[in-house]
């Protein structure tokens, strides 16, 4: 691993979990963000330019804010997918044990009963985070 030369250890290490999750789940964010940007009417950007806004200002004040809901929902989807990622993490970084792997480990060692509390905890944490992230949009309606 070349990354090791920079002092980054991937296999069986924290960065490994991050990389495995990103690899599996980033496409959800990218895809949804792309759709969001595509939906912004180019005429709005044209008008903004004609009113005196530079490229960068137009992006900052028009394009990005209008695409933001799509980006956010892509990010939430991506995160939801990542938190439960199992296979890629299992291969790349079994240790230091992420939640799904802990569930798997408890299940294989002690059975369903043992893995249940961790599952419930994981689901509850996810639920709370989902609700917090969706809150601003519900309030808008």
């Amino acid at each position, binding site marked *: 691993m070349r990354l090791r030369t920079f002092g980054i250890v991937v296999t069986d290490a924290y960065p490994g979990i991050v990389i495995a999750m990103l690899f599996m789940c980033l496409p959800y964010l990218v895809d949804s963000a792309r759709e969001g940007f595509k939906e912004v009417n180019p005429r709005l950007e044209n008008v903004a*330019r*004609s*009113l005196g806004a530079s490229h960068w200002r137009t992006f900052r004040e028009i394009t990005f804010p209008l695409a933001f809901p799509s980006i956010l929902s892509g990010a939430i989807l991506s995160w939801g997918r990542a938190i439960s990622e199992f296979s890629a993490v299992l291969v790349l970084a079994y240790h230091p044990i992420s939640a799904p792997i802990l569930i798997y480990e408890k299940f294989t060692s002690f059975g369903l009963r043992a893995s249940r509390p961790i599952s419930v905890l994981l689901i509850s944490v996810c639920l709370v985070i989902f609700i917090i992230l969706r809150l601003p949009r519900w309030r808008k309606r």
Partner: protein
Amino acid sequence: MIRVKGLYKDWKEFSLQDINLEVKQGEFFVILGPTGASKTLLLETIAGFYIPDRGEVWLDGHDVTRISPEQRKIGFIYQDYSLFPHMTVEQNIRFGLKARKSSAPQNKERVREIMEWLGIAHLAHRHPATLSGGEQQKVAIARAIAIEPSVLLLDEPLSALDPRTRDYLREELKRVKEELGITMLHVTHDQTEAMVLADRIAVMMHGKIVQVGAPKEIFHKPLNEELAEFVGVENILLGTVQSNEQGLATIDANAGVRIYAVSGYREGAVKVFVRPEDIVLSERIGEGSSARNVLRGRIVELQDMGPLTRIKLDCGLIALITTQSREVLGLKRGTEVYATFKATAVHVVRG
């Protein structure tokens, strides 16, 4: 002042071919053309959203062909209003002032002033989605004139509105031109709109400017048959000039109809254009009328268009008269009438 020289641009299915235009300071200039004539592309190229393949754009005496749109000081108004949906009316109007970095307290005052001038002050804190079409277009106008542009480019600004709002906004646009002295370049496919608003009209077809002139000239003296059809000249006859006496030509048109026209042509094949509203129908030959052309015909078709009635005669002529005079004359299918029109109402081009 806008000057366009030899402009070419190819973009998707649209193209501009050798566009030359000159819009004078403070003029209301209308580009009239059917859908798909690349009118929007022309406007967007003048605004700088596209860089032309060839040619130059000049604004107020400066070559701006390579200058980015934010430095051109132009107002742009689209048919779909294009208001920023995530901002309130006030924020929309202030956007241009903020982008131009003028100071905040002055901005507020200026925005207030413009909103009051256009009668939209009560909408200041609403979002565009909650406004009617007419209100949205007024906000778009306010937003465009807030930056005090020297020219305003309008892309079919009234086409999506209901007739009453359209009439009202037409007057508002005139007011913008007259009170603020802004040069207006307005694109439309609506002939009434062009007629009412324009100081001068350019007709655009298939990416080319085909005729430029005063509204009267465009509607009464179209250069060719395609233009004549587009501007609503419904009587287009083929004929041959028989003689010409001091500018009054005698023309034998198809179906054995003889027409007198004011024209310079002395001989040869010609096309004869007569606008349907220039034809007067009567039951008897009008006495004391100065009209040179009197044709007899039988009514074969009546088409009620509300205040106007479109009447087709068996000699091929189409006349447009008021529904009221149709009722007074008691015209119906089969009635024999005389169609009269002046020699000056006939426009002749080479056939």
